[in-house]
């Protein structure tokens, strides 16, 4: 994940409390989603950014995951995201995201 974005995530976690923060991702595939999710839970796996060695354990989802989709206004989701459901491998993204959450999310 981009270093600046890592810095921001870290700052917001300190400011609002990790339990009050949810990270939503829009990654284009499972592996990239998993890496980003790992970064905001277990810490930056590439050891390059401010989250290296920092395990925030944040709640993190991909926007295409069913539990998130269910909370969003249907018309807005349809307009903003639905087309990409046909393009992305949503199954794979769900698999990667669930695995990371099970392992590292604290909230």
């Amino acid at each position, binding site marked *: 994940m981009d270093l600046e974005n890592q810095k921001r995530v870290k700052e917001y976690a300190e400011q609002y409390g990790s339990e009050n923060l949810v990270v939503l991702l829009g990654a284009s595939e499972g592996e*990239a989603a998993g890496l980003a999710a790992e970064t905001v839970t277990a810490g930056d796996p590439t050891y390059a950014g401010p989250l290296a060695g920092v395990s925030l354990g944040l709640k993190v989802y991909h926007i295409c995951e069913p539990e998130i989709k269910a909370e969003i206004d249907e018309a807005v989701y349809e307009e903003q995201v639905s087309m990409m459901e046909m393009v992305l491998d949503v199954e794979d993204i769900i698999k990667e995201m669930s695995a990371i959450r099970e392992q590292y999310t604290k909230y």
Partner: protein
Amino acid sequence: MAILKDKKVVIIGDRDGIPGPAIADCAVTAGGEVVFSSTECFV
């Protein structure tokens, strides 16, 4: 329990997936407060 309602939401969108602003539009409808939204670009 709702995931997004009354939470602070940080968005890391992707230019080749779903961009930040599109996710932000969605998140507010679920009652989340978007505190940060960005879009990454891998190419």
